[in-house]
């Protein structure tokens, strides 16, 4: 299993349940509005109860149904079309997602977690700066 031990289980208080519900709801809004990023607030919630690697995998499970719903709504509003997804401009990215997804699941146990998190933080800051100020 995971290298980092999980915190001890305790019965959640009503306040904690409400806070978790609001955070999860906001994660859904972010994911729907921006097409990404909903996993970050969920990850912080899951990290309180699970080991780091288990929390990452759990966040992935939570976000998948949200992304399916969001993608369906983006399709409905015409932001994406099936022909666009299968065009030569987009298809190579989607084909790369197949080995990439498997590779990510394998690497999660093999790479040093702090390294992954530093790289991820640097990418977030760089991407955010480009998006907000360019």
């Amino acid at each position, binding site marked *: 299993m995971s290298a980092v031990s999980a915190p001890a289980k305790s019965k959640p208080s009503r306040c904690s349940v409400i806070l*978790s*519900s609001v955070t*999860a*709801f906001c*994660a*859904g*809004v*972010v994911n*729907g*509005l*921006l*097409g*990404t*990023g*909903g996993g970050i607030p*969920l990850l912080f919630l899951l990290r309180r109860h699970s080991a780091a690697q288990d*929390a*990452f*995998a*759990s*966040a*992935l499970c*939570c976000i*998948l149904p949200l*992304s399916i*719903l969001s*993608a369906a709504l983006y*399709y409905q509003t015409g*932001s*994406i079309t099936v022909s*666009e997804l299968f065009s*030569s*401009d987009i298809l190579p*990215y*989607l084909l790369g*997602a*197949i*080995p*990439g*997804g*498997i*590779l*990510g*699941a394998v*690497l*999660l146990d093999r790479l040093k977690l*702090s390294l992954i*998190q530093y790289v*991820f*933080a640097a*990418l*977030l*800051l760089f*991407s*955010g*700066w*480009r*998006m*907000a100020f*360019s």
Partner: protein
Amino acid sequence: MVILQFLIGILIASLAGMGVGGGGLLVIWLVFIANMSAPTAQGINLVFFIVSALCALPLHIKKRRLPWSRILFYTATALPGAWIGCRLASVLPEMTARRCFGYFLLLSGTFQLYRQLKRNFSLDERFKS
């Protein structure tokens, strides 16, 4: 160009498959390099994430102890939020959506970096004492 796109797909999907997310990197790439509109890039990013997550998930389910009751609870709570977010995305001006996304990433990155530095610092202190 096709090979480069394929390799970028592998790189970003491996981050998504790890569960650390791609941080919207594909959105950045598609908007700044491929000159796509932000809503289209966000839609493509969603489909890209679905493909990579579906490939990674069987391995995670096989290897880990996942808290299914929590996962179901958070997902059920987040689904109405996702619906509202999508509706907002179709009415917000593109520049506003892009700026919102940028600020969100900056905030997340700062928090992530702070948390990691704090964790490393407290570990160092523990080793010293």
